[in-house]
């Protein structure tokens, strides 16, 4: 019998419809309620859970009381094991963290949670990579890669994962500082990686032959083209991590590492050090596509500042991503938001994305 943890952040998404760009914090929630916002996430969570009611005889559902999961589970005809306690109508991020941690302690195989980037951040804080988790999109901000495309899709992926048909992979947990965002500046952080069931909508589904993982091929391609005497500024992400793995070097998953002649010259470098490094050597910047929205620059890699990018030059940017990742953007362009509009304009057009060993894809940067 598989165990599912079901968790709803009941206030996720409330800030969205009333234009508050997020719902983090008690004060913003009060404002959202004043503006007439109503909870959205429970309804979306129920849409996902309805898919799971099809296998209800084969799973045990563990959830938190009331609006944090119990209500939704009962609405779907499930008989959940309810743990913990909450103050109804006044749940906070601490409740999410505590609930996720208790579910993991309870031995669930997967936490299916409804929320936004803030919720993913709380879940990550609670469980890290202990057990897999999958998001039902219900929040205002969905930059993290841990969310399914739609609530129903989340239910379907959860079913297939619990049936043993899908494996878990690393997916980005990202968050934007809401206060700064309201003031007009975006500071998105890549916080880490949750284990998330692999969404197989866009991956190779083989008729015959074997699945060829893209990452080693991408890494081999980049490493094979490395020029002596050039600096390689390798940005954050799991795709770029494969490049340092290929070189046998230690990597900073969430930061920028610098490689010269196949040796690591600096780890997790900040903006000013990067600027100093590129001042007197030719350099190449290696970027991966970050988060579910397709950002190349400006989300989770602000160290690669406009000054650094300008010095290095547009032609010296190598973008790496699997074909599946590009396809999952559903035709939307890759995005750059460096904070320097002229630079953003300069970077727009087409970029040759490395998608495998000696395989590339022309992709639009908007």
């Amino acid at each position, binding site marked *: 019998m598989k165990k599912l943890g079901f968790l709803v952040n009941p206030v996720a998404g409330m800030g969205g419809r009333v234009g508050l760009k997020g719902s983090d914090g008690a004060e913003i929630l009060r404002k959202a309620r004043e503006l007439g916002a109503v909870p959205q996430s429970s309804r979306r969570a129920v849409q996902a859970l309805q*898919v799971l009611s*099809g296998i209800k005889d084969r799973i045990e559902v563990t959830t938190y009381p009331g609006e944090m999961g119990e209500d939704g589970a009962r609405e779907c005809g499930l008989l959940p094991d309810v743990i913990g306690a909450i103050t109804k109508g006044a749940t906070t991020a601490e409740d999410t963290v505590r609930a996720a941690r208790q579910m993991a302690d309870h031995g669930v195989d997967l936490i299916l949670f409804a929320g936004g980037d803030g919720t993913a951040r709380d879940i990550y804080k609670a469980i890290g990579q202990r057990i897999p988790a999958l998001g039902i999109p219900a929040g205002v901000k969905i930059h993290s890669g841990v969310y399914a495309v*739609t609530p*129903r899709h989340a*239910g*379907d992926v959860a079913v297939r994962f619990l049936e*043993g*048909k899908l494996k878990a992979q690393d997916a980005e947990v990202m968050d934007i500082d809401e206060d700064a965002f309201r003031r007009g500046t975006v500071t998105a952080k890549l916080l880490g990686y949750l284990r998330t069931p692999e969404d197989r*909508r*866009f*991956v*190779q*589904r*083989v008729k*015959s032959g*074997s*699945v060829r993982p893209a990452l080693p091929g991408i890494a081999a391609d980049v490493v094979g083209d490395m020029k002596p005497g050039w600096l390689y500024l390798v940005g954050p992400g799991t795709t770029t991590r494969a490049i340092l793995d290929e070189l046998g070097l230690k990597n900073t998953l969430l930061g920028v590492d610098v490689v010269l002649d196949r040796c690591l010259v600096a780890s997790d470098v900040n903006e000013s050090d990067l600027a100093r490094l590129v001042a007197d050597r030719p350099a190449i910047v290696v970027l991966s596509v970050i988060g579910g929205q397709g950002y190349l620059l400006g989300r989770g890699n602000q160290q690669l500042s406009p000054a650094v990018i300008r010095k290095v030059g547009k032609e010296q940017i190598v973008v790496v991503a699997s*074909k*599946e990742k*590009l*396809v999952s953007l559903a*035709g939307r362009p890759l995005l750059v938001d460096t904070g320097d509009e002229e630079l953003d304009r300069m970077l727009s*057009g*087409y970029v*040759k994305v490395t*998608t495998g060993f*000696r*395989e*590339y*894809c*022309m*992709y*639009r940067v908007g």
Partner: protein
Amino acid sequence: MGRDQATLLRKFHQARWDEPIILELSVPGERGILVRKVEKGVRDEVEDGIASIPESLRRSVPPKLPEVNQVRVLRHFMHLSQETMGTDVTIDISQGTCTMKYSPKVQEHIATRHPGMAEIHPLQPDISLQGLLEIIYKLDCFLQAISGLDRFTFQPGGGAQGVYTGASIVRAYHAARGDVNRTEVITTMFSHPCDSAAPATAGYKIITLMPDDLGYPDMNALKAALSERTAAIFITNPEDTGIYNPRIAEYVKAAHDAGALCYYDQANANGMLGITRAKEAGFDLCHFNLHKTFSVPHQCMGGSVGAVGCRDELKKFLPVPRVGFDGKRYYLDYEANGSIGKVRSFFGNPQSLVKAYAWILHHGADGLREAAECAVLNNNYLEKKLKEVPGVSVRYSADKRKLEQIRYSWEKLYEDTGVGTEDVMRRMADYGLQHYWMSHHPWIVPQPFTLEPCESYSKDDLDEYVAVLRQISKEAYESPELVKNAPHNQVVHKVPEPSIDQPERIAVTWRQYLKKAAK
């Protein structure tokens, strides 16, 4: 069970023999055929025939072949045939991009049983192979007329090998001009995957173009990708979407302006026979899959052929031997100056050439055009009927007429009911239809399925096919679990999905199977 004439649905149940693997039927000592002892006269002449093989090459232990009597062998294969849903059993419009048209049985008789085919050997002197050589020579002439190009080779044993041959010719062409820095080939996301895989095998770096909003390859992306490093573009038209690209000449011109060659993957040319040609579109090379457009059955039912054609200036790079005609007799020309060499032994798959030759002769020029027109008409009729089925949509250029095939989507059905394309596919078998082809990878159209009705199928066939999909859509909305747990009336209830991509569970030989099963 017969078909209900009102609903066009049938209650089908497949024969459930669950036939063992033939090696499991083996009984030690049992024989299907007793091979006669060598006669004395022969033995005196060649001894036992084995002594001449060096001892180091001789087996010390006989191979572990299955020991089964003849009747059981026959029964075995009959059972297997009843457990399949092949093209001669069902309405096979499911395999979009594959052009599963009817292959007239008379062709099978000519190609495989006629003594002129059944009793010849490729190493006979060419003077004694005049009939076959004439067919090959004239088939070349037919395809020249159909494509507008100047010369064909029939050696490649399939479409992908044809593309590989094309990529090899591209390389030979640039090398002969001393232009050795052209290392990149450009193709598109909706072209067949072999348009990237085969040139990659031939040593090229591959750049893929994504589709634009209308489903065409992104023209601006092509312009951004073209450079002095581009060796060629390999492109299909129409692509898997079935939308004819009216601007194809612009793509070709842009590539030519960059000094690249243009290869037209016309593996499936069923929507354009007698209507458009590679030459007028400006292409330098093309290939036809004789096992698609020209009615030859696909691989398991007869060898496939990727017939590659090119312009005059590329002729010298074609594989050898080529078939020539001096006005009196046909001959094999081994003149290899510039040739990329052989890509397959002897004539490739000559039986398939005979079938394609017969098919073209049956039809004549007007017949070929009519076949294309019927295929397009059938496809557009099918689209109109299918768009009325709840849950079905067409992702790109939904309002445009298509050519011979269309990539549809069950995205809406999936959003509404949670039933996806794989579920529908498995359920079809319960109504006596073969599963459909979903899509090449990665999926760009969500929950895809690709249908291609060809000219072979009647309106009644198409209506039955639509009736089945409509019924499954209805089931999905009313009782999704029924569809998700399909098939219900098949030999194997449901093949667990992960097992086919877990190398530790794949066994392609009996020995491997025993080894892995023991674990």
